[in-house]
């Protein structure tokens, strides 16, 4: 595929997403009732952590890791900020201001802005902390776990293998953790070591799970629609490829198998 075609497809994809976002928001606003979403254990645990933070007057630790505004991972940084905003609003009755850490200096203004918007009791400047990147970040956060004694750690951003040090330390301090990284190695560490993990695009749907506003839920629905379309496309292409390679398979048979697969997918999705 040449560059020009790729650019045209990119524009069409972005345009289709814009249309889907507005369509989903329109229907979400009209319907008025909460869309049924699949259950994600990490999101269900967060209200309990915020309650613990309020009752014990201990802060929540929210970590961006290396996620930065202005680079390739800007979307994950913005999604993390939205997620943290919802968490902080939930913990607003606590006297202990949440602790926001990041290792990318360009994320400091975003971290402070997130705190200022959601936390209405001041002391926001000193609670958004920049720490040097990489292992130094892991070392510094590990030290603060004993010092600040956070109720729980929510790590949403860009993390590599150094996440293992953070999660191991949190586990030894008896502090629960939820982790998600846009890096594959960080995601693997999170899956193995965090108490709760978000995978892939679940971070981007966080606001739809935690907030009551319908636009956030509509955006989560758009993600589901895109995912379903891609699954359908991949399955159809796979079956077409099989039908070319195996003489036993005929067009109608492929169509029937595809219909059964789609039906099974829908049933299992509704059951979850």
């Amino acid at each position, binding site marked *: 595929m040449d560059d020009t075609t790729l650019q045209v497809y990119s524009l069409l994809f972005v345009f289709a997403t814009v249309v889907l976002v507005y369509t989903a928001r329109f229907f979400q606003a009209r319907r008025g009732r909460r869309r049924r979403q699949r259950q994600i254990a990490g999101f269900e645990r967060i209200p309990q952590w915020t309650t613990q933070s309020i009752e014990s007057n201990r802060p929540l630790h929210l970590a961006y890791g290396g996620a930065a505004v202005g680079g390739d991972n800007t979307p*994950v940084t913005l999604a993390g900020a939205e997620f943290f905003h919802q968490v902080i609003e939930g913990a607003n009755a606590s006297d202990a201001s949440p602790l926001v850490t990041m290792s990318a200096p360009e994320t400091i203004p975003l971290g402070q802005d997130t705190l200022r918007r959601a936390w209405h009791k001041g002391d926001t400047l000193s609670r958004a902390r920049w720490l040097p990147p990489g292992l130094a970040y892991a070392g510094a956060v590990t030290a603060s776990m004993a010092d600040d004694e956070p109720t729980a750690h929510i790590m949403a951003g860009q993390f590599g293998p150094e996440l293992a040090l953070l999660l191991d330390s949190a586990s030894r301090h008896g502090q629960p953790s939820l982790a998600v990284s846009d890096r*594959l190695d960080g995601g693997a560490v999170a899956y193995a070591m965090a108490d709760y993990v978000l995978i892939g*695009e679940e971070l981007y749907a966080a606001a739809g799970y935690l907030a009551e506003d319908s636009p956030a839920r509509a955006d989560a629905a758009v993600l589901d629609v895109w995912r379903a379309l891609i699954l359908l496309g991949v399955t159809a292409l796979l079956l077409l490829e099989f039908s070319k390679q195996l003489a036993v398979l005929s067009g109608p048979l492929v169509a029937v198998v595809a219909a059964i697969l789609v039906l099974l997918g829908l049933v299992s999705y509704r059951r979850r």
Partner: protein
Amino acid sequence: MGLGSRAGLSAFVAFMVGVVTILSLLLGDNPALFGDQPGSDELARRLALPGDVLLRLVVIVVAVSIVIGIANLLFVHIGRLARRKFISAVLLASFGFTIYWYVTRQGDTSLLEAVQVPIESSLAALLFLSLALGGARVMRKRADIWGMLFVAVALVVLLGSLPLAELAPVKAWSDWLMSAPVSAGARALLLGIALGAVVAGVRALLGQDRAYRAYRG
């Protein structure tokens, strides 16, 4: 100017900058999009200009932000020192001494190499231990079929990486795992992340992101 109109203005600016950048990146420097008409090269070059300027601005802002980071670190630790957390004095003294050393020794970084590098190396060694412990804890945290599968795959890949002739069949399994299921899983994850990134990008592009909404204060 009220909160609502300020939020509207910032959303409008965000929208315009986003649209200009995306169009400039997609249409600029690509004369083929405009066919063989005369002047298509010049038009493509001009369309690329706004995107280039805005991206250069981002680079400058990012470069300046490292100063903000250092200022933030110092501010936080001065505050902690004021609250009698004397461990912060170590950081402030180290910061001052390193600057002094660098300036008086004409850019000598031996202090950094003598302290920072060994500390990071020992943390890397600790990281290995943490990862090994984490692998062992998987079965406790996820005592289900997926946890078992995770550990089994990790073991096969680890054994397959050993340089022993006796483990050649395991290496074949390990290679297949890495090239087929692991690769497919990784692509699926990246696809999900990319989808999420597009939706988050569209939110920012449309000025719907929280940063552009009214600030309640």
